[in-house]
């Protein structure tokens, strides 16, 4: 039975037979998928071919109106993962393998990105998460540790003040030296915001580029973490380039290999 359903799907793709979303999804269509299945199940049970027939699950495909583009995978309406802990468990499983990674750069103190500036990255990201139904997206934001090191070094010297340029001016003002926890708190917030900015940009990409509504977005597979200053690329940065290298958001997409790609096609079955 499973083989039959599988090949029915492949046939649809090969011959370009259009599906009808309404046929599959409308619950009250008297000749729709739901009603047809109910009749088929009743028939199998009445004729004694099976003692108890199980209903088939709806695959969630949107065949679309364009035959040329073939089968399209519909975005899952239900959340793939119920919680962030589930996402982490899947990412840590022994079957997990890296599909794609990218590092976003941020200017100092900033935590905003536009998907238009990274169109190719978001296209690849979308292709991966669509094709691999169980794919998880790990986002890790980082802040530069130069100022933290500066504060710690000054405190170790016994200094209690420092000089900072007044915004929009060439003048400096004498300020009390902040404490380590104040800078660390700020870094935690900034780093989390950088990681989250990637998730926000992906949602914008789905909405503005693909026309997805909120219900058609599955953002449950994202695991967003702010790493603060805990994992700098350059541990003791002193140059602008070294500091910039630390201001980043890392994207890693992990697939659980045991899973069958959602968007399988005829080639996958040869």
């Amino acid at each position, binding site marked *: 039975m499973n083989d039959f359903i599988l090949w029915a799907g492949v046939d649809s793709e090969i011959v370009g037979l259009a599906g009808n979303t309404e046929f599959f999804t409308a619950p009250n269509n008297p000749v729709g998928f739901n009603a047809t299945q109910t009749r088929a199940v009743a028939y199998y049970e009445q004729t004694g071919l099976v003692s108890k027939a199980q209903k088939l699950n709806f695959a969630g495909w949107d065949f679309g109106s364009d035959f040329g583009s073939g089968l399209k995978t519909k975005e899952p309406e239900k959340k793939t993962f119920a919680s962030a802990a589930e996402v982490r468990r899947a990412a840590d499983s022994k079957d997990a393998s890296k599909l794609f990674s990218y590092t976003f750069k941020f200017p100092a103190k900033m935590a905003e990105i536009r998907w238009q500036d990274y169109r190719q990255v978001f296209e690849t990201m979308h292709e991966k998460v669509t094709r691999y139904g169980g794919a998880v997206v790990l986002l890790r934001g980082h802040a530069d540790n130069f100022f933290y090191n500066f504060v710690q070094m000054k405190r170790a010297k016994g200094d209690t003040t420092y000089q900072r340029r007044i915004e929009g001016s060439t003048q400096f003002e004498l300020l009390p030296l902040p404490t380590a926890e104040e800078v660390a708190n700020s870094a935690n917030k900034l780093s989390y915001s950088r990681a989250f900015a990637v998730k926000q940009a992906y949602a914008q990409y789905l909405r503005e580029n693909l026309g997805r509504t909120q219900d058609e977005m599955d953002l449950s597979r994202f695991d967003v973490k702010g*790493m603060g200053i805990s994992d700098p690329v350059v541990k003791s940065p002193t140059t602008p380039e070294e500091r910039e290298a630390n201001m980043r958001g890392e994207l890693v997409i992990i697939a659980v290999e045991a899973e069958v790609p959602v968007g399988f096609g005829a080639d996958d079955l040869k």
Partner: protein
Amino acid sequence: MNVMKFFIPLLAALLLAGPATQAQDATADALTREREEQTGTAITILFDNSGSMKGEKLQQAKSAFSAWLKTVPAEYKFSLITFEGKGQLTVPLGEKTRDLIAQRVAKLNANTSTPICGALRIAREQIEKRRREVTPYERHVVLIFTDGQETADPRGENGVRADIAALRAQTVEVVGVGFHGQGDYMNGVATRFALANNEQELMQGLAKVDAEIGGVDDLLVSPEDLAALKRYQAPAVQPISASAAPVTAEAEPVSADTPSQAPPASGKKGFPLNWIIIAVAAWFILRTLSNVGKKAKRNR
């Protein structure tokens, strides 16, 4: 007529576009809200209502506190801990609690001891719970409004200093606020210290600090400082999400296929084979020695 020809489709387009735009904004708004909720500011207030605050002092403290509270953004989350018993969580951390705290403080009577350490412990436990269960990325500030000394903990002032240092080590900013020139033993130990009659100092106690600097010329770094920074070995820092992880690890699900472990040989319920072997060996040695002794006696 021509005007109507263009106006009607335009109106229709606007009507159709309206709900779609709203739906789009809803997604963006939800994400922005999530981001703000995760990274907000939470202020835990420890308000000293001990017997030493009785009379005019308490009224002045309430007045200073009320004036200060009005200047703090309402979107911050607030909590109130007062000094009844070993410290009491009067208002738990939550949204829209600023006005409730103002009302509770206005009604406080000065009739307790001064359990600053107990109140700090409640604050610490509440922050740890919130970091574990809600978000580790909030900025936590603990404000201690007091006029005096610890009276409940045998460690006294040293206990307060130690507990403040422990909170700071957990990336919690602790701001000491003294009344009537008191509480200055927190100066230098707390993240900031201010006197309640100095509104400017009070506001500075809550001033935010940037984590990063902008251009290279934003900071005045002397050649000596730069040389020291090049030599500086940054200590390892744990990410806040790791420090907020639950203390007890989640138990791994046990598969039905997992073979059950054999009970240990020396377990309480297991068969004590090794003890029997030792007993038999001891009996055998004693018997041999006894026989040897008897034989020697007979030979004599």
